[in-house]
């Protein structure tokens, strides 16, 4: 079903990370999921204060340490060595996940296997028989942050759309995704389905509709109808 599709312009992961970073206002508290989303940290503008949360118990996480300065007590959720910035704070796991579940994070950026046009997210299990399941904090992040951004390629390696009418993989969260950043375009999740917010290069609403097999709303003219980027308020998250 994907073979005859026209592939449009694809931006690199680093470019996509920069697009995401540019949408995060100063002062935001942000959790970056394991994998590609960690690239967003490198793309955050110098001099803006954006506070990174890592669910294993820290706010104010800094970049990787210099060689020889690795501290095994100071790691991120991906179990990589990180550093501490001025203004950091440590806390235990129950407090850390209370922050998420209570709607206190502004943004989280997650990878995905699939996102449905209702905002359902599948990113923790392919459901393959014999696979060893592991969920970690994905389900907490999915339901917790005010804005849940997904960073992903639009198509799988075999050319299938990760944006779908309904997820076939096991769900991580229901109706939780606010926006999807892909290598072809940026999509907001709206009550009318996916709305194309920004199309990269030669991608068009029509070409994206063909790639995804979905009816898409055109929100590329002017600003998105929801200027806040689809962020839920703290009250709504609760």
């Amino acid at each position, binding site marked *: 079903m994907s073979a005859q599709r026209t592939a449009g312009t694809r931006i690199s992961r680093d470019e996509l990370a920069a697009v995401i970073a540019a949408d995060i206002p100063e002062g935001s508290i942000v959790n970056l999921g394991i994998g590609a989303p960690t690239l967003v940290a490198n793309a955050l503008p110098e001099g803006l204060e954006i506070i990174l949360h*890592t*669910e*294993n*118990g*820290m706010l104010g996480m800094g970049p990787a*340490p210099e060689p*020889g*300065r*690795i*501290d*095994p*007590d*100071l*790691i*991120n959720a991906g*179990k*990589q*060595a990180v550093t*501490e910035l001025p203004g950091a704070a*440590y*806390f*235990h*796991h*129950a407090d*850390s*996940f*209370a922050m*998420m*579940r209570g709607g206190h994070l502004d943004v989280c950026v997650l990878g995905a296997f699939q996102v449905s046009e209702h905002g*359902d997210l599948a990113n923790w299990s392919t459901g393959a028989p*014999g696979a*060893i*399941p*592991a*969920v*970690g*904090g*994905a*389900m*907490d992040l999915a*339901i*917790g942050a005010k804005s849940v951004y997904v960073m992903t390629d639009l198509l799988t390696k075999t050319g299938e759309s990760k944006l779908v009418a309904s997820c076939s993989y*096991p*769900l*991580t*969260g*229901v109706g939780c995704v606010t926006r999807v950043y892909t290598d072809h375009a940026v999509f907001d999740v709206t009550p009318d389905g996916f709305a194309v917010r920004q199309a990269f290069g030669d991608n068009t609403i029509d070409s994206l509709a063909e790639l995804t097999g979905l009816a898409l709303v055109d929100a590329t003219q002017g600003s998105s109808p929801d200027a806040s980027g689809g962020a839920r308020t703290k009250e709504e998250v*609760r």
Partner: protein
Amino acid sequence: MIDKTTPDAAAAVADIPDGATVMIGGFGRAGQPVELIDALIAHGAADLTIVNNNAGNGDTGLAALLAAGRVRKIVCSFPRQSDSWVFDGLYRDGRIELELVPQGNLAERIRAAGAGIGAFFSPTGVGTELAEGKEARTIEGRDYVLEYPIRADFALIAARAADRWGNLVYRETARNFGPIMASAATTTIVQVDELVPLGSLDPETVVTPGIFVDRVVPVGIRSWLDADGAFVGGVDLEGRPLAAATAEEAAA
């Protein structure tokens, strides 16, 4: 005089029986009470149920306990990692039972046990297969599932320092599950770098009050700290001195 100090790790774990439920602190390797786990392996208790965020890394610590065949069931959020080969093999062979719990529900269920909460409605996992069979409820327009406490007979955790009353301070992200597991177990055993005199921990900064701690085992300062507990670095992520790591890599 209250003195929760225990002479060594072997004595501290000697009464853990076969079939016990044991919480083990740590997130990956950070905060993992390796010396207590080694003592538990030597002690020989079997048929254990283990509660930990992960299911062991590499071949040491929790992974070694699994490899020794002592664990019947593991309750965790993230068993599959790049270095979880011991668990992976046992699971594929059907030799270990797995209860997979989203990480925040795992933490909150442990806290609930320590806090005397009978059950709580969590929004995490709603509509997913990990919520199947759980009681669901909509409260003020949001969907929740009912989650129950996770208790343990013993908790084995690691902290930076303790006094003889069992007051604890941790270091950086090695704090992770220590404070909540300490509250959720009938008997809590803590390994610490350092035992400090009563009164030398600032009461404002004690993270786990001694009320939650039963036994304290000093095991010595970590290799990335100096004798005063100050960070000096010079190790890899597994805590091995960089020279040793380089030598091993050269040999490999």
